[in-house]
């Protein structure tokens, strides 16, 4: 861990180098002040560097005002400007806990992996599981399917919502699923129905992972696939638990990373404490204490 003199440096940066997209977030005292998402390139170090400059320029902040830069995601180690690197599992959990503190299960559906974290006390992970080598349900899988169906990836979710009767897709391996989809196309099935079927399969796959945590609490969905309304809808139908999807599910990892910055929280707390002490008169405090 790098110790940085934090005076005059109120901004923290989280960089999430995912398999498909790189997300950069700038944070000031827990509030997002700027963010940017771009497709991950071959040189994630350079890319994130330029993305950061772009954001900082946009909000008019000098580079010197940035405190910590925390990187996460699969390419976290290739970010030269980062002060520390944390795994995406930790960061997504952190971000999720920040947004919805009482979420018990955090599901991150990213470009290459699905990760399910069971939260313990105080926002610390109790345990987690991930998909093994199989990539079904991840962003790459959806990309492949969209390509096979010749649908723009951004429209995949909405189009499947129009489906009246979802097709059945059973294969649980990207290659086999693709050939199944192709054969469905050949049979003349409607694209929307195939998409709905795919989403249903993905939802079932995620559900299996969620169930294996054996927790019945609130589920928090994040990661890029969280933006796919089709998957979210199917998941909501079968998950049988309370489910929250944030506005920008793909940014949660970067947010968590920025929150990982070891800022002393005491200073903030102290202010609150003193304010309270001054405002509450002794008798009132005593009464509050005695009841």
């Amino acid at each position, binding site marked *: 861990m790098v110790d940085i003199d934090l005076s005059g440096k109120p901004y923290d940066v989280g960089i999430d180098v995912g398999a498909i997209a790189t997300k950069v977030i700038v944070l000031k005292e827990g509030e997002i002040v700027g963010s940017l998402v771009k497709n991950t390139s071959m040189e994630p170090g350079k890319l994130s560097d330029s993305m950061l400059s772009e954001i900082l320029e946009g909000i008019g902040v000098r580079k010197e005002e940035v405190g910590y830069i925390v990187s996460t995601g*699969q390419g976290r180690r290739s970010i030269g400007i980062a002060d520390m690197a*944390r*795994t*995406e*599992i*930790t960061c997504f959990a952190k971000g999720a806990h920040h947004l919805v503190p009482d979420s018990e299960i955090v599901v991150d559906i990213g470009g290459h*992996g699905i990760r399910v974290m069971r939260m*313990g*006390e*105080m926002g*610390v*992970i*109790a*345990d*987690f*599981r*991930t998909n*093994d*080598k199989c990539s079904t349900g991840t962003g790459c899988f959806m990309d492949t399917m969209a390509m096979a169906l010749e649908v723009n990836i951004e429209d995949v979710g909405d189009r499947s919502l129009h489906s009246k009767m979802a097709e059945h897709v059973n294969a649980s391996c990207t290659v086999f699923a693709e050939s199944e989809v192709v054969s469905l196309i050949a049979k003349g099935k409607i694209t929307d129905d195939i998409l709905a079927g795919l989403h249903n399969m993905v939802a079932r796959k995620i559900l299996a992972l969620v169930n294996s945590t*054996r927790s019945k609490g609130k589920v928090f969905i994040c990661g890029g696939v969280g933006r796919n309304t089709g998957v979210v809808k199917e998941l909501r139908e079968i998950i049988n638990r309370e489910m929250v999807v944030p506005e920008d599910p793909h940014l949660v990892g970067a947010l968590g990373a920025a929150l990982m910055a070891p800022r002393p929280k005491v200073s903030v707390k102290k202010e609150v404490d003193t304010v309270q002490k001054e405002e509450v008169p002794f008798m009132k405090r005593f009464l509050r204490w005695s009841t």
Partner: protein
Amino acid sequence: MKEKRTSRYLKDKDGYFSEEQIDRTKKRSREMEEASRTRLTSQKVRAKTLTYFDEIMKYDGARSQELSDFQGKGGKIIGTMCVMVPLELINASGAKNVRLCSGYYEPVHPANELLGDAGLCPMVKSTLGSKMVNANPITNNINMVVGPATCDGKMKLAEILEDWVPVVMMNIPRVKIGETSSDIWVKEIEYLSRKLEEVTGKRISKRALVNEIKKWNRGHELWSKMLDIRRSKRPTISGQDAMLVVQASQMDDIERWNKKTSQLISELQDMQKKGMIAGEDGAARILLAGSPMMYPNFKIPAIVEESGGTIVHDELCSGFRLMSDPVMLDGITRKGIMRGLAERYFFPCTCPCFSPNDERIRRIKESIEAFGIEGVVFHTLRGCHLSNIEATKIELELRDIGIPMVKLESEYDEGDIEQVRTRVEAFIEMIKARRENEGI
């Protein structure tokens, strides 16, 4: 006189593998072993005596030369495939033992060629492959294989190996019910001793047996001293090294191993006095459990120890269990010795092939307490059904006592290293975060 049986699995085995393939397998194996060794030797705090154990486990180090010299003088080498083979018996018959289970990645391919991609555990495939293309100088020239029928993979492996070398298969009662299973197993051990006498042409005398038992018990005693060092707050030996040491006992002469290990222990104790520590200060204390990891397949322990954890204990049949229980005799009659031997190798064994296997959980819990474990890394080889199934049960039991566990499934190749590393790192970050939380 037994007639020579034709091969069951590889009828046209002469010239089946090209020279090029054999050479490639050997070359890759050597490279892999070298890489593993460099990883071990590049650890910052490492006792000097450990170089001896490196040498024993080296791809074609002095030990393989020694063994072939021994064989040249008419000695016999017996390959074992499991911790449940009584090595005392093998040594008492004048033969030397080597553990066959292979941790080399490359020999998996010839085995895949023979069996198709059979969804088997890579250790079984690698062991088979090594024998098929004679890729491992230490285990090439074995005179006989002893293969207990533990899991399905090993059971069938023993059968296939019979195409290359005589095999003694032993029937393990997979349900431990007191005396009945013990009786079966004693009979198997007696059968093994007969077979050994046949191969070596030497009678196994009571005196020799007791002598060997004495040596191995001494080994056990040293190993429990080693566990004491690992149990302490500041262990001076890393988990990988400890595993290397204990696996060397399966390849080395036990007397020499004892001598070197006691040297190593005093060195480690000295290091402890000097305040050294293996791995990072404040590293997460990890227990390694699950499927065996044979040298040089130290991928997972290496990742764990590189990402800020220290493996202070393991529950592997390629680790602490190799030396964990002493043979206790209740009488110096031949029958009593055989029974003592048989029960030592049978009852305390927590191999997942036994069912029900509650001892395993009990043992894991006990070591969690004794070693101050903060998290369990459960490793399963892809295709090891037994460990895979038990993982769930163990995770739930551990959740009850508040110890996190991560299950890692891996193959014998380096392809999944990054994935595994991410998970291990997240796991260790999680343990450290928990620690901070408890500190508040």
